[in-house]
């Protein structure tokens, strides 16, 4: 136990030191703090983009789903892959547009494209509303990981408090440079830990992959395929499509895009990232190994399966190392989310309210927002209680509503009016809110539909409402000639 505590503690210290060291030699203007002065090469951009793969969501939620739900967990593998093939076309276009305009946030992009600060404000609200639950998720994950890996010596609350304080310090000092530096350590550790577990555990408990899956299929028939109803094929397809278009509507990815030096970085990444994320497979193997080895965890507790199995199998030093890697999967994405949300609040909300504030003031406000956001997220993490995947899926539905307005903004000028785009987003978000709060599903809403339609991800409905409103409003409100003319000049 002391060994695992020592490993956890030293990793924590190294991560903070690395985060602080990253500032060396850079004056932190807003552009430097938020998007690294647009000077990141392939490796840093790759690691920032790959950050989505190894958040606490994949580490705990991925193994938790494999453990609790079986085959439906594979959707994670699919949506990331399809998101990368989409990124090949989407990201260079975003980067090219942002480059000459000094954009630092996602809201900047929308407000520039639609020439409307109101649009920027709306996108800011949507972005922050989605980022906060995501941040909460990282903190909750951090609490679970440290409590488990320290054999209960550190309570989740203590872990969340110290994690939050550490985050605030290195984010305020180093901005996105700190995230990029700690991301290198994180990816190295997680690669080693995840592959080691995913290879060792199936062999240790079953003698091999084939034997393990045969044993699971015998003990739980149907667990390794998609069921006929519920998380069925139509659920799988709709969820994969919805989440893969949703990935790049997350505000932190826009910031990640801006950090790049050149647009070809994204094309090369689109080739490499599908291979890199195959490592998620080993997370699933761990979860599957746990289904027979440590049965009985249900609901939100399924997220604990990885650590329960690790503790039942390994010596404390190994558990400590796994915990340290897990700790980083919370800290690094957490820092990116914090920077993104703080930048949005300063640049697109504060600046909209106080238009003549100087660049320095905006930079100061951004950093001042960090503790505010971090403490809000901490409060929610300490007092809320939802399973990890459910929380993330809600955030996904929230940001995905930006997708129509994003895609229709490409070309020389947006293809729809600002009014139509904004009305669509608002209608979509309203639908997401109603659906999430009432726990509605298509099966409850329309019991007479065929099974395949009932299983569709409810997020599709919100997106359809969004598109319908865009279409209807577009009939009445055309692009204003003035705005169109300004674009051409």
């Amino acid at each position, binding site marked *: 136990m002391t060994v695992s505590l020592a490993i956890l503690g030293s990793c924590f210290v190294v991560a903070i030191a690395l985060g602080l060291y990253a500032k060396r030699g850079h004056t932190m203007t807003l552009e430097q703090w938020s998007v690294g002065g647009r000077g990141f090469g392939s490796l840093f951009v790759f690691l920032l983009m790959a950050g989505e793969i190894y958040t606490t969501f994949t580490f705990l939620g991925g193994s938790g789903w494999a453990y609790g739900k079986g085959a439906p967990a594979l959707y994670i593998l699919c949506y990331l892959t399809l998101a990368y093939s989409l990124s090949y076309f989407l990201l260079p276009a975003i980067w090219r547009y942002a480059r000459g305009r000094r954009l630092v946030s996602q809201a900047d992009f929308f407000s520039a494209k639609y020439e409307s600060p109101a649009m920027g404000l709306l996108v800011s609200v949507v972005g922050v509303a989605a980022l906060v639950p995501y941040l909460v998720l990282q903190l909750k994950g951090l609490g679970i990981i440290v409590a488990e890996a320290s054999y209960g010596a550190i309570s989740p609350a203590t872990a969340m408090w110290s994690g939050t304080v550490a985050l605030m310090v290195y984010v305020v000092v180093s901005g996105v440079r700190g995230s990029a530096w700690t991301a290198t350590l994180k990816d190295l550790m997680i690669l080693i830990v995840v592959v080691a577990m995913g290879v060792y555990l199936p062999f240790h408990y079953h003698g091999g992959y084939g034997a393990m899956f045969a044993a699971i299929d015998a003990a739980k028939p149907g667990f390794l395929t998609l069921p006929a109803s519920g998380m069925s094929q139509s659920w*799988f397809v709709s969820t994969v499509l919805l989440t893969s278009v949703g990935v790049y509507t997350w505000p932190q990815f826009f910031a990640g895009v801006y950090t790049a030096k050149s647009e070809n970085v994204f094309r090369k990444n689109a080739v490499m990232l599908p291979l890199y994320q195959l490592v998620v497979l080993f997370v699933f193997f761990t979860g599957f190994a746990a289904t027979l080895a440590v049965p009985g965890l249900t609901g939100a507790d399924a997220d604990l399966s990885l650590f329960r199995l690790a503790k039942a199998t390994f010596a404390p030093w190994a558990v400590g190392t796994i915990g340290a890697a897990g700790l980083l999967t919370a800290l690094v994405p957490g820092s990116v989310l914090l920077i993104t949300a703080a930048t949005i609040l300063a640049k697109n909300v504060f600046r909209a309210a106080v238009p003549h504030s100087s660049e320095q003031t905006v930079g100061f406000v951004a950093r001042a927002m960090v503790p505010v956001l971090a403490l809000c997220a901490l409060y929610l993490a300490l007092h809320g209680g939802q399973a990890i995947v459910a929380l993330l899926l809600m955030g996904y539905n929230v940001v995905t509503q930006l997708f129509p307005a994003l895609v229709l903004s490409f070309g020389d000028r947006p293809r729809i009016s600002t009014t139509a785009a904004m009305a669509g987003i608002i209608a979509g978000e309203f639908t997401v809110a109603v659906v999430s709060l009432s726990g509605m599903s298509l099966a409850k809403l329309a019991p007479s539909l065929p099974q395949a339609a009932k299983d569709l991800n409810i997020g599709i409905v919100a997106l359809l409402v969004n598109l319908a409103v865009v279409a209807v409003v577009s009939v009445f409100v055309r692009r204003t000639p003035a705005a169109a003319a300004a674009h051409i000049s």
Partner: protein
Amino acid sequence: MPADAPAPRPHQWRRYHALALLPALGMLGGLPFANRVYPLVFGLPFLMAWLVGWVLATAAIMAWVLRLDRKHGIATDDVTRSDTEHERAGATR
């Protein structure tokens, strides 16, 4: 947009870009056929192996698209640092 910044090149769509749709079609379209446990492939349930196969195929397909784009001069060589800085100096915001 400042007058001296070059207009962004509109993305040039080529017919071969449709290749990028293959992963989605194959991975998801094949589900009715692939949704089974046996035969195990390299010890993996058939469904899992099918999806992993498509992940590998996606990397190969995107590498192919990148090669074609390079050949057609769409995936341009990296913009140099000074280029970016020049533009930034010209930006008005």
